[in-house]
């Protein structure tokens, strides 16, 4: 019965498949076309968990930002809890890719994420009363140039630890 029905409905299924691809294209190309142009497509694509933008390495940039999390003690001394390059203390993220890219980027771009991770880092050292999130910015070397050791550091926020 299902096979027979599928055969009969082929034109309708083909039409729906075509409509789906139009919707996905309208959604995915929205930033290039100034769209979405067809009302509702974006909402439908997102609602079924198929949102997509495909902007991998769109702008590699000439700068590289990483986040450092510094713990501040009562005597105002600082201790590096999480390096921008790799984890210093366990438990932090075991997998380098998660640590270096997935979370680093979000810590620097999103205030709520920054606060969440700063508060989580409080648990890495019992003497720490606050955590300071520092953006470490490095200039990438142009072709033929050596890598500069200079790093520019700016404080993104300081968060008191709940005790």
């Amino acid at each position, binding site marked *: 019965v299902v*096979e027979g029905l599928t055969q009969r409905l082929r*034109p309708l299924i*083909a039409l729906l498949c075509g409509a789906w691809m139009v919707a996905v294209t309208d959604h*995915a190309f929205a930033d290039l076309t100034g769209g979405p142009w067809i009302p509702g497509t974006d909402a439908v694509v997102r609602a079924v968990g198929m949102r*997509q933008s495909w902007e991998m390495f769109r702008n590699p940039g000439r700068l590289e930002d990483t986040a450092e999390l510094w713990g501040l003690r009562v005597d105002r001394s600082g201790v590096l809890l999480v390096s921008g390059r790799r984890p210093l203390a366990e438990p932090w993220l075991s997998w*380098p890719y998660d640590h270096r890219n997935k979370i680093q980027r979000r810590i620097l771009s999103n205030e709520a994420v920054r606060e969440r991770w700063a508060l989580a880092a409080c648990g890495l050292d019992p003497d720490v009363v606050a955590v300071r999130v520092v953006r470490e910015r490095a200039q990438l070397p142009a072709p033929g140039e050596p890598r500069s050791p200079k790093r520019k550091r700016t404080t993104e926020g300081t968060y008191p630890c709940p005790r």
Partner: protein
Amino acid sequence: VPALTRLSDWWFPELEPRRLALLRIGWAVCMAVALVPSALDASWLFGGPWVIGGALVAVAAYGAGLATRVTGPLAWVLFQVLHAQNPDWSTGGDSVLRVFGAYTVLMPTEAVWSVDARLGWTRPLTRRTWLLRLFQLNLCLLYVKTGLVKLPNPLWQQGLAVHYSLALQGHQRIPLDALLGSAAVVSKVLTWSTLVFEVGFPLVWWRRARVPVLIAGLALHLSIGALMDVGVFSVAMIWTYVAFVPLPDPKSLT
């Protein structure tokens, strides 16, 4: 109308059971690559191990072809839940697994190399064949979009994008500074050829160009994966090629 009939028939290709099985197993392997390392940090990333643990069990069952019509969609839904729990966790490779996984888990992938096949729990291969077409078209859309979006960027126009991508220490697998210092021409060739490949990927529909296009893509993603830590992205992209790669006729192998 014959033309319309042909057009509608195009959406219903004949499915090759081994291709479907490779899509299933490949997706499960890629999902494991994405999930296992993060499972080690489940309390940090997701507040507990339950959802990611459940996703891993479902992925393992789906990869083995056990109750695929349940375990595949379940694994995909749990993957979505993980992204909802922690949107910071999602990157390009995860998007590839999410989007193309959705098409895969709904296909009848259990006909061969599966527990379901041994138990006789298989669906006819004539069902949902259009999902393979959606998979293939979405893959073309991915490449064309990612190519077009780069075109206006000066670093891509000047041929410097590969140089600066390789200079990102957060992505480097091995220190590449010595190579970067002396390879401006290489960067230009690789940057521009990447753009040509991405925008030209739809040539994969032309039978004569299919194998060269897929080999070029394989070279691109293998080199990215070898030189840069981009998580599951390289493996996931290579997996998507299963939808296009010509499979040898099993009779010719015997």
